[in-house]
């Protein structure tokens, strides 16, 4: 048993259109720096987990492919899938393996090579991450469409505008421009976001996260193994929630119940006051697969009261220096969203931020020593909220 679990090493590939590498080569780009920064060898790893949704890419048996390319055989492994929360699901498996005492050191890799398929095929495949029969087969809902149903409901209920949603893209591109690993490293203006045609009203091109290739890797370790490691952070808690497949079985389209549930669990376990959790956190990564869900996440995570999340972005309270910096790595919006890698990439960001290793211009001030990651699969079909800390959790 290990009461506490540490992140002792991280690696991150450049996200984007990675036509220059195949799947194992892309994986190695994050595995190698993760092993290096943890200062471990493959033989130290007891178990490895691969987060990979993978329906759009050629290879199916990814863990074995990694075992072969990265010298991880014959250690135990598993492939994990939870739609866009796949990366955090992989972290959960590693975290629990160490907590239970089954393993001391676990390598968690998140990887996705979405551009092995043409865009129309990817649109077709992602549309199936809801209830296939009642939503996709008969009504052709796309992924932007699922979230647009929420974006519209939020606008109509709370008076948010398309310009407000554009502000989220502007912020995330602003920070993406400072992140050398991001897919888009260019700032955008509200006018530029408002310009293109609609993808799924009210979302236009810049309201949507891109189709991305990328990998991210973290090395998790038990308290005993981590005790002599200098650069490390701790997993304070993790909450997981699940929603219904059909959106029509939800009672509300301005919030994700599974995310609220996961947040409550995570806050409770970490001893964080649910009335003002931002007072305990130095920053957060939230699942901004589209612009509107970032605002909804502010509320589901209680950074703002219901209906007031939009005011946070209007007042620039989620920039560095505001109430709580959010997605200062560019988020899914500008950093890119390689589905299986996203949750692991958020853990890499927590490590970099808490240890003050983020690139110039996007380093948050670390006062409380805690960082939150919110990773949603589907449209709240799966929600993971993970809280990372610089110090071990005080009981």
């Amino acid at each position, binding site marked *: 048993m290990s009461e506490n679990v540490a992140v002792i090493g991280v690696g991150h590939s450049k996200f984007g*259109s990675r036509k*220059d590498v195949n799947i194992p080569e892309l994986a190695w780009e994050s595995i190698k720096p993760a092993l290096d920064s943890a200062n471990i060898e493959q033989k130290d790893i007891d178990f490895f987990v691969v987060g990979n949704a993978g329906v759009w890419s050629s290879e199916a048996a990814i863990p074995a492919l990694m075992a072969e390319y990265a010298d991880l055989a014959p250690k135990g492994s598993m492939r994990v899938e939870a739609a866009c929360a796949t990366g955090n699901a992989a972290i959960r498996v590693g975290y629990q393996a160490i907590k239970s005492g089954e393993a001391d050191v676990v390598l968690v890799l998140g990887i996705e090579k979405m551009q092995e398929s043409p865009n129309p095929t990817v649109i077709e495949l992602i*549309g199936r991450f809801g209830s296939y029969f*009642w939503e996709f087969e008969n*009504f*052709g*809902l*796309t992924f932007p469409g699922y979230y647009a149903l929420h974006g519209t409901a939020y606008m109509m209920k709370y008076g948010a505008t398309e310009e407000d949603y554009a502000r989220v893209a502007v912020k995330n591109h602003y920070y993406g421009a400072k992140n050398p690993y991001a897919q888009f490293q260019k700032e955008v203006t509200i006018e530029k976001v408002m310009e293109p045609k609609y993808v799924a009203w009210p979302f236009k091109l810049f309201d949507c996260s891109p189709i991305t290739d990328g990998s991210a890797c973290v090395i998790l370790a038990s308290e005993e193994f981590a005790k002599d490691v200098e650069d490390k952070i701790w997993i304070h808690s993790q909450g997981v929630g699940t929603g219904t497949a059909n959106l*029509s079985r939800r009672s509300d389209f301005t919030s994700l119940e599974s995310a609220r549930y996961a947040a409550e669990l995570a806050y409770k376990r970490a001893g964080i006051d649910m009335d003002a959790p931002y007072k305990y956190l130095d920053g957060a990564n939230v699942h901004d697969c589209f612009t509107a869900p970032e605002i909804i996440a502010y509320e589901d995570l209680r950074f703002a009261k219901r209906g007031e999340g939009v005011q946070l972005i209007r007042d620039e309270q989620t920039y560095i220096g505001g109430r709580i910096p959010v997605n200062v790595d560019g988020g899914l919006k500008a950093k890119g969203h390689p589905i299986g890698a996203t949750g692991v990439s958020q853990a890499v960001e927590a490590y970099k931020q808490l240890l003050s290793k983020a690139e110039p211009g996007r380093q948050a001030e670390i006062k409380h020593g805690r960082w939150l990651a919110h990773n949603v699969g589907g449209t709240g079909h799966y929600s993971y909220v993970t809280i990372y800390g610089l110090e071990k959790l005080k009981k």
Partner: protein
Amino acid sequence: MDEKLENHIEQYGFPIVPDEKSGALQWIDMRELRVKFIISVEKIKPFFEGLKEGKLLATKCKKCGRLFFPPQKDCPSCRTDEMDWVELSKEGQLETLTVLFVRPPSFANYDPYTVAIAKLDDGPRITAWLKGDPTKARPGMKVRVEVSKRKEGYYMYELVPVE
């Protein structure tokens, strides 16, 4: 096989093509996978029979009365499969909507369509295409469910604003 690929096979000796943007060499998979799934509707057959007669049917647990739409065969509250088929009122209120401009290729033969969720007066919610001008649609607006035939010739239902 397309001509471009054939040319490349001739040129490189392999199905290798430089990526249009980056120039990086890409192997084009020669094993095309086309999938079409076959989904059982045996246990919800009455739903389709009802639709043909213009009725919108849901299942209702005989024991606890819980109503299910989309219809499901089992009641997880009572752990029973003793269900009645009941007709839903086709009246309801619009809750949210979106207009799909970028469609999946399998919907390319349709113009941009509006997908909406409405709450029926009987309680359940329903997802369907919304007829009419989406710019005039607002949450809270009264809608009714109409059984209609799709372009492809089979029955489906849609939401229609009530004047």
